């Protein structure tokens, strides 16, 4: 487990323990102020230390959270038994490993260096339900690969160069339900045509200006 995840996981116990220790230290300190059976300033040292340690423990999670660098590698998570893979905004360039993850159910890679060739790596993705290639260099040619994905229900193409003709090639897809087309040149007519193809379909498109 990486340090950030560990910090998040331990944050509640640390904050609760720290605050509790600081509170106990506070009451101990006040008690010592009024009951001077111990010699005066020296008797206050132990409760003061407890307060400081408590505050340090309670503030550790946010401080660590700020110091630990954020991992910009691929985010590969199993969610209810399904592989959800996110590469959007990552700091790597090599997409070749995608060919070895054909069990992926959700793939998010809204990056400008994704091309039709990257999408071609997904040919064997028989379980892929959601694909986000917004902001990528995908064209209508890439949609030829995408339309053969047998389980696809949701496709994100925001701010790409796909056209009305490309969207029409998706019309007969058996499972595709939602297409995101914001920031594209796709017309309302083409979007409506897709929606009319099967009941329950939706297309997200910008309002005409």
């Amino acid at each position, binding site marked *: 487990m990486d340090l950030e995840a560990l910090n*998040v996981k331990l*944050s509640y116990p640390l904050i609760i323990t720290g605050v509790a220790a600081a509170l106990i230290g506070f009451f101990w300190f006040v008690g010592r102020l009024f009951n001077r059976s111990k010699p005066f300033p020296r008797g206050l040292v132990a409760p003061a230390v407890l307060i400081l340690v408590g505050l340090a423990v309670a*503030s550790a*999670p*946010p*401080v660590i*959270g*700020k110091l630990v660098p*954020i*991992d*910009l*590698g*691929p*985010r590969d*998570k199993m*969610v*209810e038994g399904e592989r*959800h893979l*996110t*590469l*959007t*905004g*990552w700091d790597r360039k090599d997409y070749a490993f995608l060919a070895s993850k054909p069990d992926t159910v*959700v793939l*998010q890679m*809204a990056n400008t260096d994704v091309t039709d060739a990257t999408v071609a790596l997904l040919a064997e993705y028989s379980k892929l339900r959601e694909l*986000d290639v917004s*902001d990528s260099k995908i064209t209508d040619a890439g949609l030829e690969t995408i339309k053969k994905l047998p389980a696809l229900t*949701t496709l994100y193409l*925001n*701010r790409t160069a796909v056209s009305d003709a490309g969207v029409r090639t998706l019309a007969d897809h058996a499972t595709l*339900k*939602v297409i*995101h087309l*914001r920031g594209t040149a796709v017309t309302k007519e083409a979007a409506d045509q897709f929606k009319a193809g099967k009941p*329950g379909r*939706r297309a*997200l*498109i910008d*309002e005409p200006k």
Partner: protein
Amino acid sequence: MPIPECPPGDTRLAYYFAQAVDLAYYNDDGPAKFRDQLGLEAKLISVGNTQVYVAGDDANIVCAFRGSESPTSIDGLKDWFLTNANNLLVLPEGRAGTDFAAAGVGARFHRGFLEALESVWAPFLAAVEAAYTQKERPIWICGHSLGGALALLAAWRLERAGFPVHQVYTFGAPMIGNAAAAAAFEKNLGGRVFRVIDIKDVVPKLPTISLTSNLYEHCPKELTVGQGTPAALAADLAPGDTIAPEAAPGVWAAVLGQIEAHFMNNYLSRLSQG
């Protein structure tokens, strides 16, 4: 009164949604007030400490999130200590984690707001889906304070769930995530999110007093209501280098004014003046 037909971000629209988020603070008599004042049939969804009205008429769907309640009540204390103060920046687990990671693997969000939204998410999504399936209409989302933060996060998740978000209006909302998150929200929701703030309201500057806070950043467009500039406000708060005894009541009034600036009544009166 129906939703006014005017350009996105117009003051008249902001005033309409200011009324909606004000009504979101009501419980039992909320639906009647939504009907009387805004002509909307509204349903309150309340799970744990999060409340949202899903309302609609023939032409629109309006979702209004309730903000933090006064810390003088148990619910208010929970809002402030379990939600607002819980400001570690995280990506959540589960399906919500996938949806928010779509903003980028480096995006991080306010944990308290994420948990507050998660508690109400399933019934909220079901209500929006039912309304939208019945008839496709523009979906408007709004909220005040904590509710404004939830409105933004909900807009993101609704869009990821395939429901087009028409416009979002937040009033005195705090920041919800780090710079990567704000940039992604700007890219995807920019031009549709209107963040109404009063220059005197301090909450939109939150969370800046926490240890993690300088990592937070605001997302999209800001509409300022009320007069004044940051410099004038600073002069109100500290006239001269030191505070003379006779100026002290004025300083205290300025501080109270900043707190009052956050209340929905202030936003309503500012916006009603046009």
